[in-house]
């Protein structure tokens, strides 16, 4: 027994409380919607040919996007893991977190600036004699945009996994004379294989629920996702029953895919190491340098050029004037307050879930109840992504409208919704780090009897500080760029930065919108800088 009964009980209670909280939050919203709909044509909805068609399209684009994101992320992660010391490395890593926090609309416009009919790519192609500009509007555009937004995330998570490989493995590989093929086969792929299902599941969910991108770059209504239908049924038709049915449909279908993914092997046991700094002798070979350099250059251009286009558009606006407006500072403060709270809440919930899942695992795969709880906690934290924020927001609005003044509760609801939306990311960052950390220290801690508060303070927090910081900054960046729930509750005094961007765009003021988008992008970059910083503790290389 590696945990005392008291610890086990505490962990499980914490996890169960979080799980119950999530289910209650989502459930009440759904219930409110169902009650107000009067159970109209729920079943009929499911079998409409239109719905079936968009289901098919939703799944198609999500599966392709996921596959492409993962496939392209692998060489990037490999290259970064292999080349550990070159000028600008940390900036490439930070760059990869920026797309995630960017409002989707701004990112899309940036992509269009590069890949669109007037973009650089087409201008170059036209110079080379192409007749008409290549159009990205269609499935190809959707895939491009999804890869832009999701591949960096996948690469970062994969890089984290590769960094967890004991340093001895790399030294061994080079000592054995392994070439890159064998290194991939014996060391890199087994590690990546264990994290790919989790990453794939997350990206799949993000792409399946993609809304603005699909509509903007899809080229026409042939490209419609279930999310659009949900949005439409709430905003245009006001048919809450239909919205709920469609949401459930989305959840059921995606769960099946995720279920299939979860049958793949789970993250393996990590080797015990001394905590030596990782050295990659195979990175020094000229062939590796060239290949990695090429990959990194391509990915940097791929990410940076659209962002550059956002920056240039932003610089063309009157930034000084924007910064002088009081509404800007008001919305910035609101955005900051919301994202900090949401990130904190997400971190808290994740820690309880992650720790409870570990505790459930420890007792062996014995009780069915325990295994169910384990799966439920993992599933709940991921599936929240499938419940559209508009469903949650509308449901809670309905639930609360008779009880109190909604605008007072609105900030809390927005924080809760944003926290839930960032939960899957936070868990994907925390859980692997937590597992490795526990594996390395739990026997020692158990044998010495370091438990509870002391263990948290002395052992867990210092070791987990860096992943927690990364997770926190991820969650903050996500919340910052999200328009979502605010749109429903937004009112005169409650404005966030993305809301401000949209409102400028809606008033012909695209220049202002560009400037604000630039500021948002810079904010996200600053957050990720904070996330990759850690207390510097240089460990002198061990000799002998």
């Amino acid at each position: 027994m590696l945990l005392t009964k008291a610890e086990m009980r505490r962990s499980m209670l914490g996890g169960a409380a979080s799980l119950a909280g999530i289910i209650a939050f989502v459930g009440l919203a759904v219930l409110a919607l169902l009650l107000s709909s009067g159970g109209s044509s729920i079943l009929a909805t499911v079998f409409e040919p239109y719905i079936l068609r968009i289901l098919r399209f939703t799944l198609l684009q999500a599966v392709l996007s996921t596959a492409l994101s993962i496939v392209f992320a692998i060489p990037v992660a490999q290259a970064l893991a292999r080349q550990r010391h070159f000028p600008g490395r940390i900036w490439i890593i930070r760059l990869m977190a920026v797309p995630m926090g960017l409002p989707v609309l701004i990112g899309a416009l940036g992509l269009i600036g590069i890949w669109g009919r007037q973009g650089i790519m087409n201008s170059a192609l036209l110079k080379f004699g192409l007749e008409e500009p290549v159009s990205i509007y269609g499935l190809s555009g959707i895939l491009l945009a999804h890869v832009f937004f999701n591949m960096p995330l996948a690469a970062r998570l994969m890089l984290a996994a590769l960094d967890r490989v004991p340093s001895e493995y790399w030294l061994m590989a080079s000592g054995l004379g392994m070439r890159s093929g064998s290194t991939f086969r014996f060391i890199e792929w087994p590690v990546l294989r264990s994290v790919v299902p989790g990453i794939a599941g997350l990206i799949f969910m993000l792409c399946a629920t993609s809304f603005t991108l699909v509509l903007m770059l899809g080229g026409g209504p042939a490209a419609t996702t279930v999310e659009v239908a949900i949005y439409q049924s709430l905003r245009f038709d006001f048919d809450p029953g239909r919205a709920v049915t469609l949401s459930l449909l989305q959840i059921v279908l995606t769960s099946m895919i995720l279920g299939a993914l979860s049958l793949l092997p789970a993250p393996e046991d990590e080797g015990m190491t001394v905590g030596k700094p990782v050295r990659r002798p195979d990175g020094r070979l000229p062939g590796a340098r060239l290949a990695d350099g090429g990959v990194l250059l391509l990915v940097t251009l791929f990410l940076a050029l659209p962002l550059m286009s956002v920056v240039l558009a932003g610089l063309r606006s009157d930034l000084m004037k924007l910064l002088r407006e009081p509404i800007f500072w008001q919305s910035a403060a609101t955005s900051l307050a919301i994202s900090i709270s949401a990130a904190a809440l997400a971190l808290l919930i994740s820690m309880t879930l992650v720790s409870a899942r570990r505790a459930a695992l420890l007792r062996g795969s014995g009780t069915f109840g325990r295994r169910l709880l384990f799966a439920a906690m993992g599933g709940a934290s991921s599936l929240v992504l499938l419940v559209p924020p508009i469903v949650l927001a509308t449901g809670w609005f309905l639930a609360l409208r008779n009880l109190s003044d909604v605008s007072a509760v609105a900030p809390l609801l927005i924080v809760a919704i944003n926290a839930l939306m960032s939960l899957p990311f936070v868990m994907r960052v925390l859980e692997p780090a937590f597992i490795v950390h526990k594996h390395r220290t739990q026997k020692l801690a158990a044998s010495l009897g370091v438990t509870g508060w002391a263990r948290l303070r002395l052992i867990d927090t210092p070791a987990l500080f860096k992943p927690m910081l990364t997770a926190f900054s991820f969650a903050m960046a996500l919340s910052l760029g999200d328009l979502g729930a605010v749109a429903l509750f937004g009112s005169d005094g409650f404005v966030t930065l993305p809301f401000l961007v949209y409102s400028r765009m809606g008033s012909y003021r695209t220049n202002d919108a560009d400037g604000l988008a630039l500021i948002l992008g810079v904010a996200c970059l600053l957050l990720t800088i904070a996330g990759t910083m850690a207390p510097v503790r240089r460990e002198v290389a061990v000799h002998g």
Partner: protein
Amino acid sequence: MFKFKFPSRSLLATIFIATATLTGAGAQAADKTLTVYTYESFISEWGPGPKVKEAFEKTCGCNVNFVSVADGVALLSRLKLEGAGTKADIVLGLDTNLTTEAKATGLFDASGIDVGGLKVPGDYKDDVFVPYDYGHFAVIYDTQTIKNPPQSMKDLVEGDPSQKIVIEDPRTSTPGLGLLLWVKSVYGDKAPEAWAKLKKRVLTVTPGWSEAYGLFTKGEVPMVLSYTTSPAYHMVAENTDRYQAAAFSEGHYIQIEVAGLLKNAPDKELARDFLKFMVTPGFQDTIPTNNWMMPVSATSQPLPDAFGKLVNPSKTFLMSSDEVAENRKAWIDEWLTAMSMN
């Protein structure tokens, strides 16, 4: 170390208080409060909202409290959401395509205003809703790229497919629905064939007007579906006449924006006063250069020169709200089918 745990509660309390103070601004001061639900761009800094508030508050001795939602469609959804318990006294920003559904909620009361004297093309008459501005839909084009703009809907539909247009989705935006109804008005039963032809020119369909216009001004596409008044913004605020509207010979569909008062408004007299105020110069003055639409009654000053250069449609299309409500789903399905075929 424990950055993430410590500030949570106190920070939430701060937000709570901050928001309560900010949103509670309207709760202070004056004896009477008029709550107006409207869409976001109306009350933005450059929108008509602030000026309207100032002007009305001078005459009524009351406090105007604006509550904003994203757009006209969201306005209706918000009302349905809140039901009879809604705090709105006035709803401002619905358009004529939504009025039948709005009336069906049973939340609105007769306005008591005679709209016959208003200068609205299309002969709009209603006893519940009062129009406050209008705008004809039009295809806006970039004069630098397009030298021969389409001169009719037929031109647009059958024109050169390499000159693209970006349009909005009728399921999620009112200009999108407007174009749908426009094509329907011109082509009637032959609308699906028209759409099938037009599809070749459509670069992409965006969820809303902002995204479409953003693409247009970035130079991604030379034409966009917007309002006849859009060029006025560029001429007045940006001093350029690069973007112009194309005049279609068959006529243009019109969007008329209306306001109405709610049955459960505590002070109906005040609400009616606002509706009356709405068609006076005090309100109408803000429409041309703050809302970038056309006023429905006289303004104290003549319209800016730029407005004189705008397209003035010879014929106006407007379907009755009932007709739209009845057929909308079927027409949208028709549109979907036509646009989805390859």
